[in-house]
């Protein structure tokens, strides 16, 4: 152990910051250049205590780590210079992101250097949170944990995987509690369930690169679905000659919709019916590659095209065209995401899409069995809103005495109707482990400041394993903690475990635990750890491939029953809480780069907005920038109008991410949070929150806002800036692939 400790010191000492006193920050032209810069003795310069072999001041070095901005698990390379991490790039070795990142990944440094981090433990005394020492905080926490028994203890996390998941389960085991809730608002829980039920694999690999036509029912795979960066890299192959075709059916144009060849808004919640109608038509014409059981066939026959048109509002001709495309341009791939799944019968809608996949022969062609990571204990405990609802139920029943939140902010993301805040008030002791002063932390009795992902150790197993071989990727710190008084998530968990189980005392800290654990993984040959070669290789590469526990897909097509469309007089519109690549579910609202980055479609910055179709806006008599009140049965929000044609006329779409009441200077009191007004409707099968099922009415508020967006003209004014060419010509000149 002592040896390990010394190793650790060596490993970490390069992270020490050098000479931070203004390096790279003096301004060109702040003043007369001669005054500022030709002065001697203004800046400081500091050397390392010990020479570091690979660290030369003035030269940047890249270290591998893992991105934690969402749960896709992309590999990272971070550029470190003078002990500061400056820039993140993708790890080219990662089969997930192939060296690429999304905007959120790029902004990881701003989460790390965020000026609004929690810098010391805080304990609620006389009603207010006050800074305390870690010793005091932990003794308080251990005392509370000691006093609670079994299921009275609950832990709420986001998606958690790798060795952190192991520690979480260990803690739950030690506490004798089964109440671990993993909460993610943006998830693919319903898709997973459908895949599990119909294909026997919860997360099959989707081969976008092989597909020639993709029909997506609201799956924003380029933006927010499953593993966006990976999907985008695959999309590039899909779009290269001979170029596949993308059809997107969704009530509000997402980033993926913006790139579709055909974008159609079906009436919200009728995607299932549309899928069934297409399936019916495909079978009718005999285009199906796989035959279905007579039961299924009978059920499908109900969905003749005129009826489907009536339900979905999509003309028969278009439906026929889509159906013929699916057969002409095989292999096809049908996806279904949030806007199809977010209803009471969401499961059925997604199942209908999957049925279509089966019928057109996508399964086995473009849908392959997943490369499951072999170590079950390390697999991701994937977050869902079902867990949040379960947790809320528990709160309602006053089932918990101590609740431990880690890296999650349910107080912000939970709909008002779940009564989370009220329920939490009844809980004896609430602990928030977080980097930022978020809404949950503001309600907590104890706040434990966590190290940022770029300061912490960890391992991650992505839920969606993109490559042929599954990987576990390593998260290593890229610099020493900026704030002295923060601790890694693993370290805190290990500390809690040590207090309960002597077994864990052999590990000095989480790093030691992780290293021991990883070196025992099959695949790291150097078991006796000579010169740390295997370990160093692992850190250098950033990930470890394993032999896949390959399953086989077994098709179980069954009948699907989707509900018809119901009009509502009182609440005529549907609320679509759209997910944004950027602010995600609101966790990145405190990152200035992401606030300033315009929304990909609306191009609005620093605020939220309600997208309305010009027709709807005309009926309501509102213009861009007018404030409207969006009211559901569970509450109301006010936000500015943004009019464009990329929404269904029955829809008001408000993006998630804003409307924080805490969370630092960049996020606080900015915009509105659509999640708050969602009705507590759940998907019947999975218990997921039906995010798109809330009906709302909209009324004008006599106030106006200046809609702050990028770009002067909405069209090119006939100027040939973005030129287009037909796909036929493209295939002629650049080949059939």
């Amino acid at each position, binding site marked *: 152990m002592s040896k390990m400790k010394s190793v650790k010191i060596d490993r970490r000492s390069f992270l020490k910051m050098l000479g931070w006193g203004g390096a790279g920050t*003096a301004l060109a*032209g702040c003043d007369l250049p*001669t*005054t500022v810069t030709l002065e001697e003795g203004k800046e400081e310069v500091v050397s390392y*205590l010990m*020479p570091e072999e690979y660290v*030369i*001041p003035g030269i940047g070095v890249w270290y591998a780590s893992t991105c934690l901005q969402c749960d896709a698990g992309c590999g990272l390379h971070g550029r470190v210079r003078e002990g500061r991490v400056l820039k993140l790039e993708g790890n080219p070795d990662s089969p997930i992101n192939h060296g690429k990142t999304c905007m959120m990944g790029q902004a990881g440094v701003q989460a790390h250097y965020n000026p609004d981090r929690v810098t010391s433990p805080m304990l609620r005394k006389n009603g207010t949170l006050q800074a305390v020492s870690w010793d005091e905080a932990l003794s308080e926490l251990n005392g509370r944990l000691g006093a609670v028994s079994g299921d009275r203890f609950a832990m709420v996390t986001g998606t958690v995987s790798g060795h952190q998941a192991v520690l979480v389960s260990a803690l739950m085991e030690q506490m004798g509690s089964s109440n671990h809730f993993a909460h993610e608002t943006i998830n693919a829980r319903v898709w997973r369930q459908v895949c599990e039920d119909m294909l026997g694999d919860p997360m099959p690999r989707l081969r976008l690169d092989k597909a020639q036509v993709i029909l997506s029912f609201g799956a924003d795979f380029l933006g927010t679905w499953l593993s966006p960066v990976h999907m985008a890299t695959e999309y590039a192959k899909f779009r290269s000659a001979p170029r596949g075709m993308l059809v997107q059916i969704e009530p509000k144009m997402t980033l993926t919709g913006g790139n579709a060849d055909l974008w159609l808004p079906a009436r919200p919640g009728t995607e299932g019916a549309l899928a069934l109608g297409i399936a019916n038509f495909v079978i009718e014409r005999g285009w199906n590659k796989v035959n279905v059981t007579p039961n299924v066939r009978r059920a499908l026959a109900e969905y003749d095209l005129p009826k489907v048109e009536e339900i979905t509002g999509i003309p028969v001709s278009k439906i026929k065209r889509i159906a013929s495309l699916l057969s002409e341009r095989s292999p096809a791939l049908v996806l279904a995401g949030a806007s199809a799944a977010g209803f009471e019968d969401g499961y059925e809608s997604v199942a209908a899409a999957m049925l279509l996949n089966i019928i057109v022969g996508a399964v086995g062609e473009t849908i392959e069995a997943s490369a499951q990571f072999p170590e079950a204990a390390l697999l991701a405990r994937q977050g869902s809103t079902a867990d949040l609802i379960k947790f809320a139920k528990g709160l309602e029943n006053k089932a918990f005495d101590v609740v431990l939140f880690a890296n999650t902010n349910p107080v912000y993301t939970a709909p008002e109707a779940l009564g989370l805040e009220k329920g939490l008030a009844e809980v004896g002791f609430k602990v928030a482990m977080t980097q930022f002063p978020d809404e949950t932390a503001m309600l907590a009795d104890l706040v434990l400041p966590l190290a940022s992902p770029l300061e912490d150790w960890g391992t991650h197993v992505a839920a969606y394993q993109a490559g042929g071989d599954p990987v576990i990727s390593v998260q290593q710190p890229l610099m020493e903690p900026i704030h002295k008084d923060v601790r890694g998530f693993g370290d805190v968990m290990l500390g809690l475990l040590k207090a309960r189980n002597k077994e864990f005392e052999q590990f000095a800290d989480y790093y030691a635990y992780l290293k021991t654990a990883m070196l025992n993984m099959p695949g790291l040959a150097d078991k006796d750890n000579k010169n740390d070669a295997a370990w160093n290789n692992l850190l250098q590469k950033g990930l470890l491939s394993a032999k896949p526990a390959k399953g086989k897909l077994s098709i179980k097509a069954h009948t699907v029953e989707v509900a018809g469309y119901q009009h509502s007089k009182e609440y005529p519109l549907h609320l679509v809480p759209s997910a944004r690549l950027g602010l995600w579910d609101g966790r990145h609202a405190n990152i200035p780069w992401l606030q300033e980055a315009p929304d990909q479609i609306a191009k609005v910055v620093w605020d939220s907005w309600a997208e309305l179709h010009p027709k709807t806006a005309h009926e309501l008599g509102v213009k861009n920038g007018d404030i409207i009140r969006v009211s559901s049965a569970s509450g109301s929000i006010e936000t500015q109008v943004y009019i464009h044609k990329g929404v269904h006329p029955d829809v008001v779409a408000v993006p998630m991410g804003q409307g924080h009441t805490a969370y630092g200077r960049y996020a606080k009191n900015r915009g509105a949070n659509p999640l708050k007004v969602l009705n507590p409707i759940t998907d019947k099968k999975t218990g997921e929150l039906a995010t798109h099922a809330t009906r709302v009415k909209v009324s004008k508020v006599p106030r106006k806002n200046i809609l702050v967006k990028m770009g002067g003209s909405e069209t090119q004014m006939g100027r040939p800036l973005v030129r287009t060419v037909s796909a036929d010509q493209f295939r002629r000149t650049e080949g059939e692939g």
Partner: protein
Amino acid sequence: MQFANRTSLNNAAAVSIRRLQAKLVQCGKPFYLLMALAVMALLPLTAMAELPVPSHITPPPGEHEGEHVPQPIEFPHDRHVKDMKINCMYCHTYARRSKVAGIPPTSKCMGCHKVIATDRPRIQKLTEYWEKGESPRWKKVHDVPDYVHFTHEKHIRKFVFDADFPVEDVQQVCGVCHGEVREMTVAEKKKPLNMGFCRRCHEANGGPGDCWKCHK
């Protein structure tokens, strides 16, 4: 090139005047005026550096009377360079590899000073730092503006390695910009290190003339 014959006095005066103007604009204290005048008056008295200049370098004219910057430890360059004959790059190891020459890691100092001269107050101060596990916070003396990209590595390569200049005499090359460090305790700025100085040297020695080579 037409400036190459300019006397160092003129040049230094020009620099001083610019500094003076700049300072006056910045704070307008008559103090600076007096100081600049004093510097100007003293300039003719300044003895020229005696350090031999390598024959393959045409040194740019230009002198500067740097302030004596108080450092955490009054490090005696003269002792190390002149008396001990230690090569510049023994301590400033990064000069041939990186933009910056680098301050030696404290362990390097301690490599000798665990045993040598341990009774001296400066060494005791150094030992104190070492035992605390800290490095002294030195003040930068030779500093170029942050919009300037200067790299030691290229200059050392051109004037030492590519020119087959004996590495043991490297201080002559360093001295072109750093002055006669062997006569100083802590480093003092002896050359103006402003754009005119750089440009004159680049013109005389065939350095690049493209703005973006040095400005960032």
